[in-house]
């Protein structure tokens, strides 16, 4: 099975595997710079870590699959590319975007106070455009448009306290 993932910077990674000799699997990894094929075994350690063996050498990987994100960490210093990475399965993102539900409710990431509102109903916004600013714990946080959209409704006002999870803005995504 082929599976594609995307990291926070938009880099894509594709993995696929097929059974090989002696209970190992032949895995193909496709990065931007090209494909690598390796015969590997994987087993579960007592604490839930994954032990990945290639050519008799075992490395430890921490893997957590959440609703939207897959988190993965490998601690081997031998890997210059170590540490925690957050990936999204590409299939899932596509499915999400194709949904029938045309409106999106942006909610506050924290309990705080709205200090600036940059947009009004009817505005067209582009991906990453600042919509408003929420202040909490002495820090200001800029809430940006997750993608190109039309603002349907601003559900908050400057100076108002908002609970974490409270709706801030309703958007209608524009088909890109």
């Amino acid at each position, binding site marked *: 099975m082929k599976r594609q993932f995307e990291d926070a910077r938009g880099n894509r990674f594709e993995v696929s595997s097929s059974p090989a000799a002696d209970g190992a699997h032949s895995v193909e990894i496709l990065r931007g710079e090209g494909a690598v094929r390796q015969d590997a075994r994987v087993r579960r350690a007592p604490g839930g870590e994954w032990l990945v063996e290639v050519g008799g050498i075992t490395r430890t990987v921490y893997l957590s699959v959440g609703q939207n994100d897959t988190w993965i960490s490998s601690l081997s210093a031998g890997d210059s590319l170590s540490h925690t990475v957050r990936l999204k399965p590409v299939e899932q993102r596509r499915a999400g975007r194709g949904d029938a539900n045309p409106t999106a409710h942006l909610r506050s990431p924290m309990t705080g106070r709205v200090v600036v509102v940059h947009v009004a109903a009817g505005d067209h916004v582009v991906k990453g455009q600042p919509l408003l600013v929420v202040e909490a714990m*002495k820090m200001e946080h800029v809430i940006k448009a997750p993608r190109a959209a039309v603002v349907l409704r601003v559900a908050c006002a400057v100076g108002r306290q908002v609970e974490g999870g409270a709706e801030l803005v309703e958007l209608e995504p524009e088909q890109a």
Partner: protein
Amino acid sequence: MKKVLIAGRGEIAVRIARACRVLGIGSVAIYSDADAGARHVRKADEAVRVGPAESALSYLDIAAVLAAARLTGADAVHPGYGFLSENPDFASAVADAGLTWIGPPAAVIAPIRSKTAAKDVARAAGVPTAPSAVLDDLSEAGLQAAATHVGFPLLVKPEDGGGGKGMQRVDRMEDLVPAVQAARRVAASAFASDRLLLERCIEGARHVEVQVLGDQHGDAVHVFERDCSVQRRHQKVIEESPCPVLTLAERAAICESGRAFARHVGYVGAGTVEFLFDPVSRAHYFLEMNTRLQVEHPVTEAVVGLDLVVTQLRIAQGARLAELFGPEGLQQRGHAIEVRVYAEDPADGYVPQAGTLQRVVWPDAPMVRVDAGFETGDVVPVHYDPMLAKIIAWGRDREEATLRMLAALRETVVHGVATNIPMLIDVLQQPSFARSEVNTGWLDAFYGTEGPGYGVAPSDAALLALALAGPGQAAAGAASARHAAGPAAARDPWDMLVGLRVGGGRS
């Protein structure tokens, strides 16, 4: 003192419960509904609910906190930091209820709460302050006189402000009036008062603070200094001790200033006197005093070999400083660095993150300490400060401490919410950090508003695991997590909390 109620949450509440346990004193945690199963609840002997998630109705509700003390028979209150820790009304209410207040009495706190009043106290104590003036006369002539007194460049600051909010830098007299007008507007909307302060701007200043201790018998000492210059938007991110740029004489002078201030106000308990240090003129200037334990107290503990929370408890029990430290007194040894691990998304402007921690592995290496508020399965609520833990590394010198911290951060695993760990690793490897050529504006200037984002791509081993471990198999990590992350997790990826990943509590 038989049982201490801890009026806080998160890592500091866990820290205080541990100090109580060392002395054989019972501990009582308090919790809001958002923290019903939190780590600080589990690590205390007993725990009592004080209200709903909103701080104002729980952790900030003096009556509810005192009721929890009564219910459990606690005979003392430790305020931690944040929340009610610097509120003189709370200190008084605790004392009025016949309980021991583990901190300075209200009478000590009150006169130094305002920045202006504290500066007056500093001058009276012979502690250097930067030139400053309160803007009482808002006429143009009055403003000009004040600015001439203070000197340029200067900062216009709301007197009741904090976190750099409403602060304006002014380099020339002609920019003064518009800057004052803008600052007044911000102050009026954000703070209790629109009163402003002019203060000389110390360019390239470092934040150096002195830990002090006072006992109930009039004695006060300093416990050396910390350097907290690595800040993001006025929030400390990396702290260390000793300050790497001070000469012995400069260290002695700034520490003596801290002690003199503490002694002048009759300080009792643990506190911190904050200074700006000008790396050009080599002068230090009093900033303010924090009349509580600081987040960054562990770097002092690591270097000096003194448990500050145990010391707070002993001072509250009436111990004399001279007995506590013995004839050898206190010395610094080696170097310690602390990093604050925040749940915030470096790929999205460092927006705070909340959700279920699907897996957490804190480093448990020698000479590394972790003060954690969260572990695997815990929920980071949306309602409070997003600090997950502090990691403190000690070394014989600053370079060894830095290497040890890098190793510790590289073996830290946090899944479920994004953290600032990639940024911390990046900062610790910067030549500017290695040479300690930093000041309070360095980090913001270095990264701009976006931060370093995620600096790494998944390793081959990681992608092999991903290929061979089915998503179904891999989800077992947080199987025992039962609590939802505040608001229910939205199913539609579009209809979600901005920047917030609510982990699948039931996956």
